[in-house]
């Protein structure tokens, strides 16, 4: 079984395990409270029913009216401001459910709207997040230069710290603002911001629901929209920095490609420069070389740190297996470095661009951190 299959199986098993653990903990935390609350509420309901003399059907009527009126309590939900809020919750996949389309046409349009809007939003947030990461990296380098530090390169650890700090401060700012405007406790407002910015969006806490805020407080409405979009950008930048590289770990391909891409392999020697042959040879060869150790390295990497690019800079010219990081080997970065290395060490007729690239070896390390 090749590495990718093993990796995928491990991930599936860890998710199942994670779900089981989560279920057990939530059960322990919430069950008792739920049953006691349910008893108390039913008790109260019985009292009220006796007090007002309801029959079962009457209560059914009241219940229906109350449940249907619930979304209307926050004011008009489908005027332009409310619809904008709703559209935001659709394409960012937050999906509070505080207002849902009731007409069938609204539901159908919602689906089409989401089909185009969600990928657009995903790409937009990742694009903007990458720009932010690049800018932060530039600022940090300038700061390091100004402060006269010895090592002027911005490491992955620096970027992760800055990313974490900005996520935390985004959450805190939002929590402070919403606890003030919505009269929630700070903890509940924090919880609301977290659930919103991770796009879970339960809907138990929803901003702009009370007091007809959508109509009466336009500055607060604007603040809410901006906060959601900016906060999602900050989280997106952090995901772009830390998680995206794991999403793009590509297929090993040496088995499948041999069958499916046979022509491609065969055509490689026809190519112009020797570097590419070295590149292709080094790629699958290196990948086949150290599977079990790579797997261990992968697991430890997933669990522990993301300092691979710092270690990369040492492993750059060590083509022969000093680096046993499977993500690295199958990443674009590795192949780029590999060509560079091979041409630096091997070929005297390497094109000058490649030599220049080798000489400018600092560049790839700094640059590639945001992928």
């Amino acid at each position: 079984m090749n590495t990718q299959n093993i990796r995928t199986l491990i991930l599936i098993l860890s998710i199942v395990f994670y779900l089981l653990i989560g279920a057990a903990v939530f059960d322990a935390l919430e069950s008792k409270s739920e049953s006691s609350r349910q008893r108390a509420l039913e008790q109260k309901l019985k009292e009220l029913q006796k007090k007002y003399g309801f029959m079962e059907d009457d209560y059914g009527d009241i219940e229906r009216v109350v449940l249907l009126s619930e979304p209307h309590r926050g004011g008009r939900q489908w005027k332009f401001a409310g619809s904008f809020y709703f559209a935001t919750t659709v394409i960012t996949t937050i999906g509070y459910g505080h207002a849902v389309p009731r007409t069938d046409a609204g539901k159908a349009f919602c689906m089409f709207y989401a089909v185009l809007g969600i990928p657009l939003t995903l790409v937009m947030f990742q694009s903007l997040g990458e720009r932010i990461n690049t800018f932060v990296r530039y600022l940090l380098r300038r700061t390091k230069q100004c402060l006269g530090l010895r090592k002027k390169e911005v490491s992955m650890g620096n970027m992760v710290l800055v990313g974490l700090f900005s996520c935390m401060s985004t959450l805190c700012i939002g929590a402070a603002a919403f606890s003030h405007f919505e009269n929630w406790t700070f903890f509940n407002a924090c919880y609301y911001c977290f659930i919103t910015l991770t796009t879970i969006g339960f809907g138990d806490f929803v901003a702009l629901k009370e007091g007809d805020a959508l109509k009466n407080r336009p500055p607060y409405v604007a603040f809410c929209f901006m906060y959601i979009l900016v906060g999602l950008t900050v989280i997106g930048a952090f995901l772009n920095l830390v998680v995206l590289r794991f999403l793009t770990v590509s297929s090993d391909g040496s088995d499948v490609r041999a069958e499916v891409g046979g022509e491609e392999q065969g055509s490689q020697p026809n190519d112009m420069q020797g570097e590419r042959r070295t590149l292709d040879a080094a790629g699958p060869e290196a990948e086949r070389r150290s599977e079990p150790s790579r797997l261990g390295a992968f697991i430890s990497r997933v669990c522990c740190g993301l300092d691979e690019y710092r270690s990369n800079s040492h492993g750059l010219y060590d083509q022969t297996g000093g680096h046993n990081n499977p993500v690295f080997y199958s990443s674009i970065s590795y192949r780029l470095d590999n060509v560079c290395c091979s041409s630096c060490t091997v070929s005297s007729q390497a094109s000058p661009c490649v030599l220049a690239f080798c000489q400018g070896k600092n560049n790839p390390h700094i640059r590639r951190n945001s992928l």
Partner: protein
Amino acid sequence: MKRQNVRTLALIICTFTYLIVGAAIFDVLESLEETSQRQQLDLKKKELLHTFNLSTDEFDELEKVVLQLKSHKAGVQWEFAGSFYFAITVITTIGYGHAAPSTDGGKAFCMLYALLGIPLTLVMFQSVGERINTFVRLLLHRLKKCLGMRRTEVSMVNMVIIGCTSCMSTLCVGALAFSQFEGWSFFHAYYYCFITLTTIGFGDYVALQSEQALQNKPEYVAFSFIYILTGLAVIGAFLNLAVLRFMTMNAEDEKRDAEQRALLAHNGQAGGHINCSVDPVSPSSSPSGCGGGSAVGGSSGGAASRGLRNVYAEVLHFQSMCSCLWYKSREKLQYSIPMIIPRDLSTSDTYMEQGEAFSNPLHSNGCMCSLQHHSGISSVSTGLHSVNSYRRLKRRSSI
């Protein structure tokens, strides 16, 4: 302006426009219905107040109790089955809200749980999706061979069509099942499956909430969980195929820019006439920049025209992408991603000026997708200029 900045700005503007247009359309579709429903409910409420001789405060009190009881009506939500359901809605970010932690401990644990669970789930679904894509590609290739077709390569368009079909069929299978088990209409069940599998998760329709299903119907519960996870894997496979490459475009361009700067730096040292193609105040972090020590001709003066050329290049890129997909659907696009990185026209001029002997493999058809002999190309030129050898990186198309 650099291409990445142009692209990002364009995406931001597109998204805002999309939001505004969507808001206007939702307004038109739903406002009337909302108003009429509201009026009806107000009337009904007045009737009830009158019939039972309730004051408004008393009714509010009753309302509060009823609303709080709502989630309890659907059954016990926090036994193991319900908690598992909740945990799924957290880490997949569906987040129906049919049950939400009420204790502070539950909320805190929920946040920590999501912090680790969401990236893990993202990576898992993309990993599974990539495996699915590879397997489908293999199957299709075998099928084409069996059918004795002339071209047995699996093109991108094949994969996209299969991806779309599998998404639609997943939704339809779910719609059939849930309309049967939950008593919803087929359209509402389809809407439920769509909202669930795109992880929007409004919570207006939620499975396993009627007739105490969480406690009494374990097979249906198991089916629901498996359906949600499998459906997300299918959607994830399609996203992996079609969308993930776009999320890495900016980073690819940054890389390319730095390579070119390094190249120019070297050529500058060699004493050639260099047209620095990089915006001197760009926020990129490459230290060498254009100042390789040699004469940098016309670097500032050409900034505006370079910016325009960047925009033009980006437009050409989209144009050629569309035409590629239309005309070259039979080309082997398997391991090359034609829409990724067309070359900057300004730097191409640089190369032309320097007269470097680069190959120009793509002049044959003018379409960047004709990559029979150069399938390792990930950076695709607009057909006007050469591609550096070291940039023929083997990209996998399932990225």
